[in-house]
């Protein structure tokens, strides 16, 4: 123990031998941690936001459809809701929200627009997807109410107000004619411009009546326990009749989103590799100078009887202390920034906003508070420190004390 305290004392005091160099090394680590954590937090925050808006708050991470519905979204590809009864009380599934997703032509005065008619089970969705929290004007539909909620984009395009009535015309189940007139009771912000422009939300019962789909649904949104959609998906494939039903995860339903995240993540990784390379060379410079400057001293220590492994321990400890100070300082500086931008996300404006919204995403960049991001970046920096130290390990292993003391 005392021996180890001496190793620590040597390492600690050596840091103060060349204060300026230690400061530069620690500063480069701090910079790398701040930059990498902020960058990754922004990236992951943006992905989380996209997923939350499109997947978590609307589409769900896993869906069940009648086989073929995803490729051919017609009302005829519907299934009976009781086909999902086997999923009740499954330990991997938190909720099952049956929905009807159909298309209709909506008309108001002289304006007509194709819209997505989304029929939801109010009682179930109130506690899960919680669309009611996104209503920005008017109120959310009540059970058995004959009203509709429209996206804020559609409201703007068609210049609709609360209590205005929209006329719907569509094809119902098995070629029947579907038509109806419904009053607007609320306006919703689905956080995704594309959805806001096209979505009309109704009571599931009302939608079933509209399309002639008694006791049927086109879609069931599955809520996985603890967000573990992979387990839930696996379970669904085991339990359900997959001859007639299809189970799809968000990556299959939204391949563009997955691809976008993959490509963006790869870009981020590339930038981080450049950053880590700069850090590696900066740290390598420190280790190189440290090994060269102390070559004589190492020779003396070996001559006196200090094992090379102990000298290696001291130099590694020295760089690890600097890395620890750098990483912790970096994280302490970054944490309030990450929290701030999580609460007050960066609001993209101008051309950037247009580009992002064209892809159907909200032009907001919140940071992610996932502790894994900070821990991963800290671990990478530590790995770089260990990697760079391999030079001093090789150098010390090769020291010949007489040559070193002549240097």
């Amino acid at each position, binding site marked *: 123990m005392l021996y180890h305290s001496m190793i620590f004392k040597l390492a600690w005091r050596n840091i103060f031998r060349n204060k300026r160099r230690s400061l530069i090394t620690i500063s480069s680590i701090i910079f790398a941690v701040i930059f990498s954590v902020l960058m990754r937090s922004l990236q992951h925050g943006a992905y989380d936001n996209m997923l939350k808006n499109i997947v978590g708050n609307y589409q769900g991470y896993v869906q069940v459809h009648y086989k073929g519905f995803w490729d051919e979204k017609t009302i005829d590809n519907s299934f009976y809701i009781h086909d999902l009864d086997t999923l009740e009380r499954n330990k991997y599934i938190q909720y099952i929200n049956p929905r009807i997703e159909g298309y209709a032509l909506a008309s108001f005065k002289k304006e007509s627009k194709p819209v997505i008619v989304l029929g939801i089970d109010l009682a179930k969705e109130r506690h899960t997807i919680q669309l009611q929290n996104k209503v920005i004007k008017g109120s959310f539909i009540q059970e058995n109410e004959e009203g509709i909620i429209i996206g804020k984009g559609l409201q703007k395009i068609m210049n609709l107000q609360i209590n205005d009535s929209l006329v719907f015309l569509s094809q119902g189940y098995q070629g029947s004619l579907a038509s109806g007139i419904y009053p607007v009771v609320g306006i919703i912000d689905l956080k995704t411009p594309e959805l806001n422009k096209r979505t009309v939300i109704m009571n599931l019962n009302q939608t079933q009546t509209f399309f002639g789909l008694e006791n049927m649904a086109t879609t069931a949104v599955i809520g996985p326990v603890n967000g573990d959609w992979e387990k839930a998906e696996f379970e669904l494939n085991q339990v359900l009749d997959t001859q007639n039903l299809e189970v799809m995860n968000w990556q299959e339903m939204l391949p563009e989103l997955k691809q976008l995240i993959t490509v963006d993540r790869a870009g981020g990784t590339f930038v981080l590799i450049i950053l880590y390379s700069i850090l590696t060379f900066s740290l390598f410079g420190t280790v190189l100078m440290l090994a060269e400057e102390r070559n004589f*001293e190492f020779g003396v220590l070996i*001559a006196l*009887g200090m094992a090379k492994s102990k000298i290696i321990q001291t130099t590694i400890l020295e760089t690890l202390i600097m890395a620890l100070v750098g990483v912790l300082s970096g994280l302490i500086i970054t944490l309030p920034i990450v929290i701030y931008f999580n609460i007050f996300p960066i609001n993209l404006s101008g051309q950037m906003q247009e580009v992002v919204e064209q892809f159907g995403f909200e032009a907001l960049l919140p940071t992610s508070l996932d502790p894994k991001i900070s821990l991963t970046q800290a671990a990478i920096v530590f790995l770089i420190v260990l990697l760079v130290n391999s030079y001093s390990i090789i150098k010390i292993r090769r020291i010949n*004390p007489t040559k070193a003391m002549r240097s």
Partner: protein
Amino acid sequence: MIYIQNISKTYQSGIIQVKALQNINLTIKKGEFTAIVGPSGSGKTTLLNLIGGLDSPSHGIIKIDQTDITSLPENDLIDFRLHHIGFVFQSYNLIPVLTAKENVEFLMLLQKKEEDQRNERTIQLLKAVGLENQIHKKPNEMSGGQQQRVAVARALASKPDFILADEPTANLDSSSAENLLDIMFKLNQKEKMTFIFSTHDSRVIAKAQRIITIDDGQIINDYYR
């Protein structure tokens, strides 16, 4: 006891082979106060390095008591030096970030000695070299003479079988050199500690009990006084 049997050391300097030592045979007994003298480049330091296991001979054997140090693996040799050999260098070579006390204590820590034992010996040695009031000073806060005395205390701390001193007085002023030599001589007399010096210094030669003269890598004179 140190046995040196038919030692030779050849260096390669570019395309030229330099014969630093040739066929050296020597025995140094416990308690001797020996000076190895000779002109610069004669091979004094090379011989001292070979005895200390810091370098390996091209030919021959060096035995310290029963251990053939020329055949020891590197790690064992380092450990052997830690327990059996003390070094005093020309430029002191103290660890700059440690105090006088910590420098002396350092080798005992490597030997994993108990704290009480270390403290007692450190204070005793620093007293013996007249530095009991300087124990918390770092090397850069001490004079050359003081640093070399700390180096002597450090060399003795590990209770070695013998001490190798390479030009220990070369960087010291006259009074510091005299003072250091007195300390080492007293230790030799009192504790029967073996000292082997490589030196040009006439003051060291004057105190030495045995003088070995080397020239061109060969012993040309070896006598006791």
